[in-house]
């Protein structure tokens, strides 16, 4: 009685056409800002200044990209950003999964209170925490090192991430966990062998979100990595637009360059998220 129509939509049907139309329409819409950045980065300063409303100029100034590399240590900034984002994301993803397991799967008195503290971290405006945090690192003499930026992600991995993974884990079926316990596996084993693989799509999401967040983070590198050789991309690029020289074409060229890794990361993560389907589907 069940036909295989369950998963495949027939080749041409109003529904399929509608879906495709919606997808294409929105995709174009969402591509526009990126096209704008790319296009403006290829204009001359005069064209940008006089604000002609065209996406791409008649003459594409690829030279802007060469100039960006000449004017500033882009490669250094790129490397710094990459280092921080990669290490930070690894730490955050693994640590937050670790903590989320505790909150989602294990029972304890005081777990509610502890989770409340997780939420409190998200709820308090960070403006309040900036200066005291800075003072601590300054007194420790660790300014201009990546430690102030990286260490917090290994200690908890970020309240947002813990929360997300906890919600995810709460939605997983319990019977596998219980079965494993009966078999005598300890919690660490359960975490690594059973829960973690099942969380693959969520982990991929956490990793992507976090990478993007760290890559685009402006405030922390501004405070903790002020040295030109230690700067990250966002901080470095912001120097192109200042009081006397508003070099928008360079800023946008730089931000297009800064965008590429994010697209790559996202593409890579897609595979993991997609793979997650098959793992979750093959159950029972």
């Amino acid at each position, binding site marked *: 009685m069940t036909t295989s129509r*369950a998963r495949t*939509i027939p080749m041409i049907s109003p529904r399929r056409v509608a*879906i*495709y139309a*919606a*997808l294409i329409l*929105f*995709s174009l819409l969402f*591509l526009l*800002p*990126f096209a704008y*950045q790319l296009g*403006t980065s290829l204009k001359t300063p005069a064209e940008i200044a006089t604000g002609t*409303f065209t996406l791409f100029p008649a003459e594409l100034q690829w030279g802007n990209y060469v100039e960006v590399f000449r004017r500033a240590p882009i490669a250094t900034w790129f490397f710094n950003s990459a280092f921080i984002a990669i290490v930070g994301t690894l730490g955050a993803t693994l*640590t937050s999964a*670790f*903590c989320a*397991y505790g*909150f989602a799967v*294990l*029972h304890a008195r005081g*777990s*509610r209170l502890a989770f409340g*503290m997780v939420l*409190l*971290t998200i*709820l*308090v*405006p960070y*403006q309040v*925490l900036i200066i*005291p*945090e800075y003072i*601590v690192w300054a007194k420790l003499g660790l300014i201009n090192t990546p430690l102030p930026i990286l260490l*917090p992600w290994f*200690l*908890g*991995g970020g309240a947002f991430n813990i*929360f*997300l993974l906890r919600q*995810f884990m*709460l*939605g997983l*079926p*319990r019977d596998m966990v219980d079965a494993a316990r009966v078999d005598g596996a300890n*919690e660490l084993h359960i*975490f690594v062998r059973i829960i973690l693989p099942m969380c693959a799509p969520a982990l991929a*999401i956490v990793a*992507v*979100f976090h990478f993007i967040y760290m890559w685009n983070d402006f405030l922390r590198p501004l405070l903790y990595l002020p040295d030109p050789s230690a700067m990250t991309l*966002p901080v470095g*690029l912001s120097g192109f637009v200042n009081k006397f020289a508003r070099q928008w074409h360079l800023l946008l060229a730089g*931000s297009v360059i800064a*965008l590429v890794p994010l*697209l790559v990361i*996202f593409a890579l993560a*897609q595979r993991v998220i997609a793979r*997650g389907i098959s793992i*979750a*589907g093959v159950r029972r």
Partner: protein
Amino acid sequence: MQRVDEGAGRLSRFRSLFAPLPMLQRVEERWFWFFIAPFLVGFLLFAFAPLIASFALSFMEWNLRGTPTLVGFDNYADLADFDGKGKVVLKAFSNTVMITVVAVPMQLIIGLTFALLLNQKVKGMALFRMAFYLPTVVAGVATAALWRWILGSEGLVNKALEVIGVAGPAWFNEPESVRWGIIFMLIWAGTGGMTLIFLAGLQQISKDILEACECDGAGRFQRFFSITLPLLSPTLFFNLVIGLIGGLSLFTETYVVSGGGGGPANESMSVALLIYRLLIRNLDFGFGSAVAWLLTAVVVLLTIVNFRLSKRWVFYDN
């Protein structure tokens, strides 16, 4: 998450916190603290002391010079002084709440719609997903320029409105329209994240359950509302909580749009922006901390309400 029988009264529940636990529970408890340990260390080091300090500061007056002077509840009284210092606080809260109440539901609805759209078996889906997530990723340093292009007097949106014969306002320069501009920015930038999370939630829903229901002849809409949505409820709950918190903590968009000024005429002043200005520009640490704690209190209350209500509609597969 509670081992204690829900029917037990509060007193016996409280007492049971101190009753000796059976062996298994004790072991499990120790594992819990083991897994939580990294977070606790981080919290104590980076959050606890600054939180205490800022709370203490809210009862003092300090501008970074010399030592703080204790002023008791003066700062909190000033919050209510709607002719004086409290005027802008009220305005900031009203702006923030208005923006949140409009933007977050839109983000949720649009995010879910997009996730459903992206969950189809269609060729090239990976590319489409990337395109849908682009808005969240694209801005960065170029945000200000980008948004001037989208919502300028003759930006993208106004040009589109022209096509249908409507004259759009100068979004960020007119007091009446600046908040709507910010709402637009939030929906544009925030929906992508929600979409992704909804998508992951959707993909987690077991195919077996869905196929079983198709067998029974349930229609697509019925399937959605009675099966998919309840199973998606933890994800929905997460997005709702995060969306509301994000809305109330609104900072970056208002900063970018107003150049840090909260204008025109304080129409784009969010609470977080106000706190920032009080601390960094006015060096008014006492009052700034009081505003920060007021915001925290509001968000905490809202989140507690959310969690309480969630028992009614969130369905965990336990």
